[in-house]
Each structure stands twice: as C-alpha cells, then as structure tokens.
C-alpha cells in the first residue's frame, strides 16, 4: 500500500522538485526542522544541515553523489532524547540502516521523526567528489545520474565511484516513511515521492500531494543495478577473503595502519561512547614496551594495531551496514571497508541477522536463548 505523488510543473528537475517538497513540508506539513544535505556556500562540498527556514533550501541537494559522513551519527545526536516537535531527516539507504542499528542500541529515537529516504546510485569518496563536482555542483549531480543509471561501475570524468557504493545491494531505502525515487527516472523531470508508512501518507495528504505512478523504467533499471552490484560485491568478498586468509596476510593487509582510529570515528555503528583503545588501558607504561620488545627482540610501534582491528570487528561487525565511511576516512588508503564488510557478512550470517533490516530484531549480542548454538560448548573428547 504505497501512494506516489508527483510534483507540479513549477519544478524543472529532480533537485528543485525535492526542494519544493521540503519547502511544503516545512510550510504546511507541520515539520519544524529538516535535516538534509546541501552544498556549502564556503566550500565545494556537501554536508548535512538542519534547516528551519523554508527560504534556506536553495543549495539543498539530497542526490549529490557525495557522502562526507554517515548522517546517522548526526540523527543520533538530534534524537538522543525524544523529539518534542516533528523533524524530518533526509537520508541515504545506508544512513537509515545505520540509524536503525543506533536506535536498537538506544542511541537514537524514532519518536516524532519522519524519515525521508532517497534512492541512491552511489557516491564518490571525499577526495574525488570536489574534482567531480567542479564549479557547478548541482549540474554535476544531474549529470551523474544520467551516467550512473547505466550501471554501478560507470565512470564520470574518469573518476570511480566509492567501492562501498559499487558493492551496495541496498539502493532502495528500507524503513523510511517517504521515499524519493531516482532509479530509472529522468532527472530533468520531477522526482517521484512514495509514502511507505501511515506517517508518510499522512504527511503527503497534509501538503496536498497527489498520487501518480513511478517511472516506467524503474523495475528494469533496478534489476540491472542489483545484478551489477551483487556481482561486484561477491568478487570483492572473494578477493578480500583471499587477501586476508591468515593472520600473517591480515598483518600485511593492515601493515600501513598508523592507529589513527579514523575508521572508528567515521563508523556510524561503532557505538562505544569512549573507545577502550584511547583510554588508560592502552596508555602503557614505557617499561612495558621494552619488556614486549625483549620478548621477541623486536616490537612494531605503535603497538596493538591488529589487536585494535580484530576487537573492533567483535564490536561492530554485527551492526556493519557497509557504508564504507571507514575507507573514506583512512589516511593511508587501506581497504578497510572491504575487510569489515567481508567479516560482517560472515558474522551476520552466523547469527541470521542483517544490520539495518528491522527495528524490531534484537542485536545478536543484546539477547540470548537458553537452548542455542550447542556446537560452541560441545565436548570433543
């Protein structure tokens, strides 16, 4: 039961049609603030902004192929306490899925929150986006969609999309109240808006949007997109498994890690308020380093690199949504997204869990059953 509304003739492309939708939401929809990505006036980049003034929507571009950060972290900050008045957040599918995980970890709240999901064809890494966008970022966004509709590995200006996006099998938002559709659509026309929940439907009625059909080419375009992405993903899994198939290979994979912990900072689901690796526990006594060095005659500094990464896997792999912000943030170009996604695929399968799938599904480590996993404690002698 979904209802699709199409914007009116005032709009000439997908971006302006979305801006008008947001304007109506703020003016007539009872939404007091809108969290949405926009092109910053002072820098050629896209960042989430919290907008209350309907006249401040000119630079808003929810489709820009740029993912500076996973906005789920920002939504978590906004909803740490339940919201007093309705707020709408415009998110990519990976951001919604990360936010679902945070809500389950009690680091976010869905009350009074309207989630607007945008269908997503992928994005560039933070270093590539400014090169891609050039001086006319809005026009660049529209150009990107023309090319990207053709498939996930399409290059524009010779730049490759982020690997996380090429491997993403979730281009369509899940758990959203409203979905803005771009798959298979002509970006030079208005974007379609579909209500997926009662909350979303009520909002569309309030702002007087009418029902209409989704673009006719959508199904075929989506099928093609999924096929390409799953093929890319499976190839990535196979290559990463091979590249890290034992601890020695893992050490070589992570050899240029400098313990900056950027992957943890950028990770939307690394949920600890204070990471143990930055506490006194790892502020070792100077003599300790010498004792360690003496043991094998050599000690790699800084220490605890593989220890950190495997421990982090034990923390976040069950909640990993594969957004790729870890790779986006790595200063040394280590393919951490590939590694974490590959491990997450395995651990989530072990527990029959999929991060971000459902708000009602308990995170595996927050629950247990009395009779389960007999193989873990089985006696072998």
């Amino acid at each position, binding site marked *: 039961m979904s209802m699709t509304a199409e914007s009116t003739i005032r709009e000439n492309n997908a971006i302006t049609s979305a801006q008008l939708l947001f304007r109506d939401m703020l003016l007539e929809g009872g939404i007091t603030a809108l969290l949405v990505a926009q092109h910053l006036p002072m820098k050629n980049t896209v960042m989430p902004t919290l907008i209350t003034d309907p006249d401040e929507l000119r630079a808003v571009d929810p489709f820009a192929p740029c993912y500076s950060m996973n906005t789920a972290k920002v939504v978590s900050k906004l909803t740490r306490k339940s919201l007093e008045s309705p707020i709408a957040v415009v998110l990519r599918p990976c951001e919604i899925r990360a936010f679902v995980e945070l809500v389950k970890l009690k680091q976010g709240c869905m009350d009074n929150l309207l989630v607007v999901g945008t269908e997503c064809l992928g994005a560039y890494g933070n270093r590539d986006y400014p090169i891609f966008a050039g001086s006319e970022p809005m026009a660049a966004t529209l150009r990107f969609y023309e090319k990207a509709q053709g498939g996930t590995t399409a290059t524009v200006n010779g730049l490759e999309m982020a690997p996380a996006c090429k491997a993403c099998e979730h281009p369509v938002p899940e758990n959203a109240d409203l979905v803005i559709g771009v798959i298979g659509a002509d970006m030079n026309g208005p974007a379609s808006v579909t209500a997926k929940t009662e909350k979303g439907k009520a909002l569309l009625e309030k702002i007087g949007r009418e029902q209409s059909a989704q673009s006719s080419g959508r199904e075929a375009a989506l099928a093609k997109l999924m096929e390409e992405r799953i093929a890319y993903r499976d190839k990535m899994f196979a290559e990463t*498994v091979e590249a*890290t*198939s*034992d*601890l*020695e*290979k*893992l*050490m070589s994979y*992570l*050899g240029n*890690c400098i313990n900056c912990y950027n992957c943890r900072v950028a990770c939307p689901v690394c949920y600890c308020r204070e990471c*143990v690796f930055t506490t006194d526990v790892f502020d070792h006594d100077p003599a300790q380093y010498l004792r360690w060095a003496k043991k*094998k005659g*050599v*000690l*790699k500094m800084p220490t605890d*690199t*593989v*220890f950190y990464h*495997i*421990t982090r*896997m*034990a923390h976040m*792999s*069950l909640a990993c949504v594969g957004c790729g912000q870890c790779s986006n943030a790595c200063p040394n170009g280590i393919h951490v997204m590939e590694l974490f996604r*590959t*491990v997450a695929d*395995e*651990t989530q399968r*072990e*527990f029959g869990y999929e991060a971000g799938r459902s708000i009602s599904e308990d995170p*595996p*480590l927050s629950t*247990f*059953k*009395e009779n*389960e*996993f007999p193989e*873990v*404690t089985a*006696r*072998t*002698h």
Partner: protein
Amino acid sequence: MNDFEPVIIAFVCNWCTYTAADLAGTSRLMQPSNVRMIRMMCTGMVDPKYVIKALLEGADAVLISGCHPGDCHYINGNLKARRRVKLLKAILKRFAVDEHRIKMTWIGASEGIDFAAIVTGMVKEVKALGPNMLRRTMVI
C-alpha cells in the same frame, strides 16, 4: 614437535569452574600443567579482547569455562558468553585461527574429575595442532 608444551590461557568463573579446578587439585587428580588460569567472577565478563590479546601474544589456546546453563551465579552470564564466543570463533576462523584454539565448556563446582579430563584432552588436542605461529612472529 614432541617437546612442544602448549600454553593455554583459561578464563574460568569463580563459582563453578574455578571451584572445580580447586577440587581437582585437592583431590590430587593428575592433569597437565599447561593451563594458566585467570579467575573471573563470571564468564559473562570475559571481554572478547582478552581472548584476542591472549592469542595475539602467542597463547596456543584459550579456554573459557563457566557454570552449566541455569546454574550461573548471575543468572545468565554464561549464556551471554556463549554468544560472544560464537562471534569470536566466526571472526578468527576468517583469519585461519583454528577454532579448536578457542574452547568453551561448562564445568560445575563439584565436577573436579571433568575439569581434569577436559584439560588433559585439550592439551592433547592443542599439541596435535602445533604451536601458535605468533609466538615467534612480530605482531603489528
């Protein structure tokens, strides 16, 4: 490899397995001396990073042992530990750490004989696996 003596780090709960180990000792049961025991209040507080650290430091195996289901002094710490061990095994398996190097058992306070038998069996198993190669390699 006949002279290989494995080092096994055991995280045991105060209420059941530690008491069982104590009983095995006071009953003068023969058992190999390869186990370095760390007494925890509950297996539910065995942080995965303790196990990871032990293996990265070159321990040949890790044993986590607590009360039988239903007997946990803290009601269900052992059942939470079981999920963490399952997760750890899944992660470490990816990096070719043999899953026999991480063992979880339930040994009740009165089961001194079981404790001795499990330790004996585990030492035999780990000897067959051979030493943890990280004992000598530089770990980053």
